[in-house]
């Protein structure tokens, strides 16, 4: 769906996206990183199980919700990647941390 215009040479961090490791530019949003690395969909809706992915990228639609480090319902377009971060697709209401 999206590609990088060029390698911006930025510092990278390692995250996992649905279990797969990815090297992504530090400071980038989780949503941008996950879009480039093919997380599709980001979640299924809690009401009907419909597939959803980022819509607005500015924090007002809440369709980019994913599980980050075990916490569900995190806004991927508003959270920055960090070293070791575990990003996971969220199914329906999301699984809660044990």
């Amino acid at each position: 769906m999206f590609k990088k215009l060029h390698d911006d040479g930025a510092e990278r961090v390692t995250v996992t996206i649905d279990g797969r490791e990815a090297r992504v530019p530090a400071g980038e949003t989780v949503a941008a990183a996950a879009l480039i690395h093919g997380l599709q969909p980001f979640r299924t809706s809690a009401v009907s199980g419909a597939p959803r992915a980022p819509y607005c990228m500015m924090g007002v639609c809440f369709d980019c919700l994913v599980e980050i480090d075990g916490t569900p319902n995190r806004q991927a377009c508003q959270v920055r990647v960090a070293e070791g971060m575990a990003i996971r697709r969220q199914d329906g209401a999301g699984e809660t941390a044990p």
Partner: protein
Amino acid sequence: MNLDAVVVGGGLHGCSAALQLALRKLRCLVIEKDTVGRHASGVNAGGVRRLDRDPAEIPLSVAAMEMWWAIAELVGDDCGFRLSGQIKIAQNETELAVLEERARLVRSLGYEHEEPVGANELFRLVPALSRHCVGGLVAREDGFAQPYQTTKAFRDKAASLGVRFLEGTRVLGVERKAGDWIAETDRGRFAAPVLVNCAGGWGDAIAAATGDPVPFEVVAPMMMVSARLPPFLTPVVGAAGRKLSFKQMDNGTVVIGGGHFGGADAEAGTTSLDFRALAESARTVAELFPIMRGASIVRCWAGLEGFVADGLPVIGPGTGEPGIYHAFGFSTHGFQLGPAVGRIVADLVTRGESDLPIEPFRIDRFAKPPSAVPHPSAGSG
């Protein structure tokens, strides 16, 4: 138009009273200043609870519960009622002893609905509860319902029986003239031999105007609701040592209340939230339900509720002119009583008496020598 009764207030109690009056063939008008169910009745926690009621309220609560179990027969809608059970938990032996004492008291009054349970049964009923809890008090056949859906169902049923609802109309004053009560509103005057005061958090004004002042305060219980979570909880949970009412709805959202109050402005009809108190609520929840630590709070709100000094509602006739009946000031726990109180009011209007013991709710109970007025603090839910 010829009316037999004017009901002031389109909350659950006004709708329930109107419905019962209509079932007894009286022609009724309900006058509501905002919209039906706009205040406490439409925004409460929906707890349908006999558990831990003041002994004076137990007979009414038990009668109301029987109506809830068959609520669809009364109003043609299930009101979202769920027989989830309600449980009050103890975090230590001292709290458990208090709950056991309470169970003995209820039994001694001849009721069987409150049952003490130990840790094993507690965690079977509430697996998500923190393991430091030691036991609880259960009412297995209590539950919860959807407040707005319920109030609307009572309204719709009443309307189908001919009750008229006048919304966006405020009763400015009432007086008795030539055998009729006249309700003066911002949209004209309405007269009927019977006036029913179901004005909730504003009920004291009408009571005072008719010569029956009551020590009364308007409070704003606050609620929080979480984003949807996978199902983890069936019963409604309260706590002995904490302000808490905690339940998970069918849709997965978790509704948290428990009697922390925000700011109340009865005149403007608005409330404000106190996030320091809500933070306290959040701490309670995080301690008792580890599963909630990853939850996010999506919405918070508060509703206006009338709180009478002794924490009990006013139910019964006025002491002055005949033909006026009060049912207001439900002091944070009137939702569950709604179905029964309507019946009580209608019985008072048509027969002059009720089968249920309503003496403790007399409007003039404070007219005796003034006693110390405790600050409202009872938990809701």
